[in-house]
């Protein structure tokens, strides 16, 4: 496999790499995104909410809906492809999974 630069998107911060298969006919695209800022922002929101400084009705809502998660675009695309985003039960299960806690902006079981 040889790796070759494919694309960089300054908007989402996603870099894509092109990997050709050994026979040269197939390929794999690898997308990487620096999610430090997203995780940091999520952590800040999460802690702010936990400390009671950001009360439930005070914001972080969109027309009565609560902001619960901020998911990096590459992971969101994966969830879309797997059908999780369009399935409310599966989405809640995913959001409640402790492994995905870094994407949550407020505590609690959904």
């Amino acid at each position, binding site marked *: 496999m*040889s790796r*070759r630069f*494919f*694309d960089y*998107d300054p*908007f*989402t*911060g*996603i870099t*894509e790499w*092109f990997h*050709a*298969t050994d*026979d*040269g*006919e*197939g*390929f794999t*695209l690898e*997308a990487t*995104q*620096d*999610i*430090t*800022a*997203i995780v*940091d*922002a999520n952590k*800040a*929101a999460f802690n*702010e909410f936990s400390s009671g400084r*950001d009360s439930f009705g*005070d*914001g*972080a*809502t*969109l*027309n*009565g*809906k*609560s*902001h*619960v*998660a*901020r*998911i*990096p*675009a*590459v992971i*969101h*695309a994966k969830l*879309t*492809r797997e059908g999780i985003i*369009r399935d*409310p039960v599966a*989405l*809640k299960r995913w*959001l409640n999974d402790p492994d995905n806690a870094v994407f949550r*902006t407020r505590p609690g079981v*959904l």
Partner: protein
Amino acid sequence: MAIATNAFSTYAAKGIREDLSNTIFNISPVETPMLSNIGKRPVKAVQFDWQTDSLAAASTTNAILEGGDSTADVTNPTTRVANVTQISEKPWTITGTLEAVDKAGRKSEMAYQMAKKGKELKRDMEATITSSQVAVTGGSTTARKTAAFDSWLVTNTDNGNGATGDYAYTATPITARTVATAGNIRAFSENILKNIIKKQWTSGGQTKLLMVGPVNKQRTSGFTGIAEIRKDAGKGQATIVGAADIYVSDFGDVEVVPNRFMPEDRAYLMDPDYAKLGVLRPFFTEELAKSGDASKYHILTEYGLQVDNEAAHAVARDLQTT
């Protein structure tokens, strides 16, 4: 692009249409949220039709006499709407020398170019179907164009200039909309968002996806309360735009996703279940007739947008773009 006169072509279509199409659709899904979210359906003609129907408004005077006779209500026929397909392509050329030097390198270059052009083509499609483009039936000198998402939306709208110069159609949008004058351009606000959410809900739709350009994605994040969360984000603010925000309530979940290719002056509230990409010819590559010391290829697809029921979606237009 003109059709070559007396062209004696050696079209050599690869026998991997369906696989290739899926491959291309899987390339960089982040960049094309509309294509990634709406379904696909095969279509068999350059003009494809579907029907929409609606129920009568709920009545509170539906009480009849005991033993009363029945008189049939007026039955409204379904509305038949249609769109046309559009052909989009990306051509590329590999020189004779590159063909000769290293066969493995050449194969790899082909795969690379196919991925690259496939991605570019997909971006073109995303930009096209999220634009204001109206349908063009086309002819021998005019390319066919499919009516894009915005041109279908006439029921649930929030425009800077109200209904003035709005799209109007019975079957296919063919008349362009007049953009609001400079004085009527507004900043995207929570009130505008609430207005279109309400209209969508009243029409029986359900907000599932709010799609906005980079500027309005940031502006959405600045709506009351959400700004609080952002204040600690510091210099990472811009980077956060590359994330999808999930909002939940007992009445359904909403995602806010950024779309770099849609017009910045708009915010689409979509129900992805009510839009599809009609595919007449899935992505395919083929070698074109050789006309010199190089091999020419193109990747091509023919597609059109089907908006099953425009009242399921909503749009805010004439928004500030900076």
